[in-house]
């Protein structure tokens, strides 16, 4: 068992543990911060998957943007929502949640089953990639390559995403404007 594997298991444990805490926790604030930890854990997993740029982006956008947005929304939705959120049943496996839990477990069983049946290690294109040395090395930096690819190969999706992002921002601003400003 190498250090890398240990790191992976640790990161996986942190990620899944915090995610489950989010699911279990009745306290909205706590679950939001647990979600914060989950995102960090995921960033770690990305690093272990040799995608350091994605990991950095994950931290910057998610933690710096989305999480702050969620906190703002939570605070703006007021005291009442907070109280309502805290009044929820404290038991994890309550009768009310049982169908949801069963559904999630079914999905898990099906997915694990599919994953093991798929036998991804022996996929054709993976073998070809191994054969042509098309695998990212541990010491390689992909940031340069990603930048080139974005501006050449993936320019059209990149621009489309930009427009979409702008539309989303305009939409968000329109939706959250004050009511009496319409007239």
């Amino acid at each position: 068992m190498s250090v890398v594997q240990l790191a992976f298991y640790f990161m996986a444990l942190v990620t899944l543990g915090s995610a489950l805490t989010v699911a279990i926790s009745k306290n909205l604030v706590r679950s939001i911060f647990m979600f914060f930890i989950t995102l960090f854990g995921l960033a770690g997993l990305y690093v272990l998957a040799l995608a350091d740029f994605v990991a950095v982006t994950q931290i910057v956008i998610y933690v710096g943007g989305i999480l702050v947005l969620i906190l703002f929304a939570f605070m703006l939705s007021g005291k009442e929502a907070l109280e309502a959120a805290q009044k929820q049943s404290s038991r994890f496996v309550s009768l009310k949640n049982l169908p949801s839990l069963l559904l999630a477990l079914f999905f898990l069983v099906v997915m694990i089953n599919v994953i093991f049946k798929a036998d991804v290690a022996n996929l054709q294109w993976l073998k070809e990639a191994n054969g042509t040395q098309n695998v990212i090395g541990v010491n390689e930096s992909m940031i340069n390559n990603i930048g080139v690819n974005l501006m050449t190969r993936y320019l059209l999706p990149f621009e489309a995403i930009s427009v979409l992002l702008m539309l989303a921002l305009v939409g968000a601003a329109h939706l959250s404007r004050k009511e009496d400003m319409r007239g």
Partner: protein
Amino acid sequence: MKEAILPQELQTIYLTILIVLLPFAAFILNFLFLNKSKASGWVSTIAILISSIFSIFVFTAIWNGPVIHVQTIWFTIGDSQVHAGLLLNNLSVLMLALVPLVALPVHIYSTAYMKDDAGYGRYFRYLSFFCFSMLALVVVDNLVLFYAFWELVGFASYLLIGFWFDRPAAVQANKKAFIMNRIGDIGLLTAIIIIYTLFGTFDLEKLFGAEGFVTRYSYIENGTWSFYLNHVLHVPVSRGWTVMAPHTVTQIPAIWQYVAFGGIFLGVAAKSAQFPLHTWLPDAMEGPTSVSALIHAATMVAAGVFLLGRVYPMFNTTELNILAAVGCFTAFMAATIALTQTDLKRILAYSTISQLGYMVMAMGIGAYASSLFHLVTHAFFKCLLFLCAGIVIHQIKHVKEDNHLDIDPQDLANMGGLRKKLPVTFVATLIAGLALIGLPLTSGYLSKEGILVQAFEWAELKGGAFMLIPVFASITSWLTAFYVARMILKVFYGDMNLSKLYPNITIHIGDGGWRYQLPLIMLALCSLFPLFSLNPLAHSGWLTGGLPQYGQYTAGLVELMVPVIINVGSIAMLYYAYMAYIKQRDKVAAQPSLLHRISFNEWYIDAFYQRVIVRAVMTFSKALYWFDLKVIDGLVNLFERIARCIAGAAAWFDKYIVDGLLHLAAALVAYIGGIARRFQNGKVQYYLFSMLLAVIVVFILKILIWNS
């Protein structure tokens, strides 16, 4: 063959119809327009005044003159025609004149007597209705109409006895009168049906006229009652002749003749208060006193005697003997009861019964004319007595109300010494009382001595036990003298008992106005001899000459001796009474002996009826009621229960099987709808859950089951 009716006869007929219809018009007028008005009294009085004037015309036209008999076909049932018409002969017009002549003073008297009563209008309505019925009763010419008006006078009497229907006693009394009259009415109806069965007609003249079927063409032989007509018979119908088919023979068993007599006797006994059915009359005194004077003394109660007069030819010797015996017994019994009664009106009521007994007895011994003569004279003096009693009671009632005393205004014990306060009333009572006793110079002497003389002559012919009848009649006459004396002495002589009992009361009483005094004077004059006979010592009047005689008499010593003995006895009784009540020398009559108790309790006849007949009827009714309740109702209830069970089963089937299927279908639809509805509950997460569930099901099927 029918001759035209002469003009003067036509006039008489119209007058008769007017006489009858005027009170009816007054009744209608009062009924429709003058419900509360005081004018109703005068409308009735004027109607009866005109009626009485016309009735005198009719009387003079018919009396000892031609009989008028007109009729028209009333209705036809099958082949038998029933006629309606007028029959005016001596008997009819006598009654036709008598009724309005007595009714007129009573009407005048009533306008004063009833003036403070709340039911003033109602009273005159009933009174006019009674006059109409009574007048119609005496002039109709057939048994059906006779029966109808017989019922109507009974009904009017019922209304007037119960005039003060808020008094329980009055209600009881009119119920009693009604029920007893019902018994008599059933008897009369039975007799009418039997007579019609045999003779096929209701016509009074055809049946009982001088040439009538009953009089001439029927006889009892070998146990059958036959009606045999072997020649053409002309029955006079007012100058015309009705032709009967010859050779008519009808026969029925003889027993029916006796049944018919029994029926008529029951009718007479109920209406004229004869022995078995007399007890309603004393109770009928609950009505207003003026009503008692008119209906229960002078007119309606005489209707029974009038009926006897109408159907007289039907009776055979045995039946006449029964009539005589019953009449004599009634007269004697009622007189003994009258001796001890303390209620002024009850004394007079029993005296009326007693005098009616005389009349029936007179009918029985064949003194037909004297009986009707007595009816007429009695109507006047008894009416007068009642009106006087009314004044006395009225005045005592005033005293009672003025001083707020709790006394019975009709009780003799509360009277006395009224002679000076009520002079006119006193004189009128005295005249009427003497007439009732039958002392010379009064009308009563003329009629009563006639009856007694004929009774003695009749008994002499028959001999044996029949002697008892005139003897008891004489005793009755003496008893009459005694109770009349007792009544007059107690009411008018002596000291005012009320003043003794309540020393500090004020007594303001008097004879009252002309509306009280005029009727008294009129009737008092009619109670004296000159109206009926110029000879004050005769024992018949001009009236008796106009009526048929049926008995055979041997004029003799009896005719002279009887009046003398009777009158001497009566005067002795008067003296004895005077001694007993004024001088207080002898109190034998006041002792509560056995005889006194029997008399005071009215021979226990009412108590006997109450104990035996009423109780038996009540027990029988209760048994019937029980039968009805348990058996008939039980059957009905059983059917009901069965029907209910069937219905219940049907309802159950309907509810659970038929409806159940429908409900099941509806419930299924509702259940499916409910399931489908739950997917549309508007919860986003539920939709999501459902979607994911579907996805996972597809996955499970596809991957885990299908592929493997």
